[in-house]
């Protein structure tokens, strides 16, 4: 099983990293959204590998199912999006150096300092939904409620921001 595990890890890694790279380098916005979905699915796969199955599914439902849809909608709803002709990136050199430095230092940190820390990558029992709920609704009830409030605010805010003002012509959904 170990081999299968590693195999799936590397496969997923290639898919995920590849699609993430595509998202940040592609010129075509619509294709980027498709790759974003693939990326999200890949991340969900990683959660699966890490025995966070609930998270994996939630990741797929929320991100691939909802967030990506929002992206797609927004791209569609924006008239006159610049095409693929113009350059879509800038500051590439600086950003590359900075992120490269970040990645380097992180990898160094992880491999040097965390070497052997924790247990070896293995398969433990996945947490059941009951365990999650137990913690979520007792110790983290307040954050939970706050997050729900944040969602409500985001909902109202989004509606408010995008609501068509009176006499503002129709550029809306239907």
């Amino acid at each position, binding site marked *: 099983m*170990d*081999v*299968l595990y590693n195999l799936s890890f590397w496969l997923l890694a290639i898919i995920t990293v590849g699609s993430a790279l595509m998202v940040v380098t592609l010129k075509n916005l619509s294709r980027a959204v*498709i790759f974003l979905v693939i990326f999200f699915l890949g991340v969900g796969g990683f959660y699966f590998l890490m025995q966070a199955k609930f998270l994996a599914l939630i990741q797929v439902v929320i991100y691939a199912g909802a967030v990506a849809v929002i992206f797609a909608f927004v791209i569609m709803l924006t008239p006159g999006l610049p095409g693929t002709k113009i350059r879509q990136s800038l500051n590439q050199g600086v950003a590359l150096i900075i992120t490269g430095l970040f990645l380097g230092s992180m990898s160094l940190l992880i491999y040097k300092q965390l070497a052997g820390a924790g247990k070896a990558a293995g398969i433990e029992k*996945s947490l059941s939904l009951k365990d999650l709920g137990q913690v979520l609704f007792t110790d983290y009830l307040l954050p939970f409620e706050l997050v729900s409030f944040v969602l409500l605010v985001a909902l109202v805010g989004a509606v408010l921001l995008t609501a068509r003002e009176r006499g503002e012509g129709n550029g809306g959904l239907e």
Partner: protein
Amino acid sequence: MSLWQLLYEPDRWADEINKLITNWGLQLGIPVFITQLFLMIVVAVILLSFILLNVAFLTWLERKVAGHIQVRHGPMRTGPHGILQPVADGIKLLFKESITLPFVDNFIYTLSPAMMFTAAMLTYIVLPFAPGWVVAPLDYGLIFVFAAGGVSSFFVFTAGWSSNNKYSLLAGMRTIAQVISYEIPMILAALGVALFAGSLNLVEIVEAQKGLWNIVVQPLGFLLFLTAALGETHRAPFDLLEAEQELVAGYMTEYSGMRFALFYLGEYTHMFAAAALMTTLYLGGWQGPYLPPVVWFLLKAYALVLLIMWFRWTYPRIRIDHLMNFSWKFILPLALINLGVTALVLVW
């Protein structure tokens, strides 16, 4: 290893097969993981062929049902009662030219039907056809079903979008709006069942219905789920995204050939998945007297499929705004009430 065991004790049968092949592989010096991989592929192939055959049968069934409801015969020429019609259709579609219009984003255009069908098929890996006959008895199987549904609808949307056709685009938008609207009550209704079973695992849900099907306990939940499932699978009377009178053929308008076929198959895959899910959640899954579990499962699922088809040819299509209102203002509150009452009853 007998046929009886295959039918009536499918879990033990599967176990023994598994052991047999693993041991056999070990004797030959093949590592376990390779045999496992091999078995996975075999199971996948079986599942895939089941789905394809089933869907092919469904397309035929739909036409026959439509025909008989409209007092005509439906396909009759190919094979007895036109039973070979799907095969003929398939061959025709395979050899048709796959047209791609100019200014179409080819990448998304090609990817969408494939992904849509794939996502639709993913649902089946958690469905328990019989004890032990489930590809992956996930702990969170129920959520997995909805996740797969969500992904699949996203690709319906991109298909409509990438077609560079306003009707397709409209259909794509409608898909998203409709699917999101109906997914929520559907999940809520299903949660009632999950609460009863105390698990999200479909196998456990089925086992929890031993003796008493959930449809008895949760009649409202079943009706809500059925309605929402119709919306979710874009079946009439909620087939707004392929409303011929308004949108030509919806998101499939610009598709032809095998790509079209994939969508077509995807739709029916979805429908059967919905029926199978309802069977699992509300009708006790494989459970039933005398007949083998698989047969029971398929019987129930087909009964639901026929019900859905009956709906299609009976009810007129409703308007898009009515559709949305119906979901948000009627089904969703009811689903919430259902869930709340269920929870309360369970706490007592």
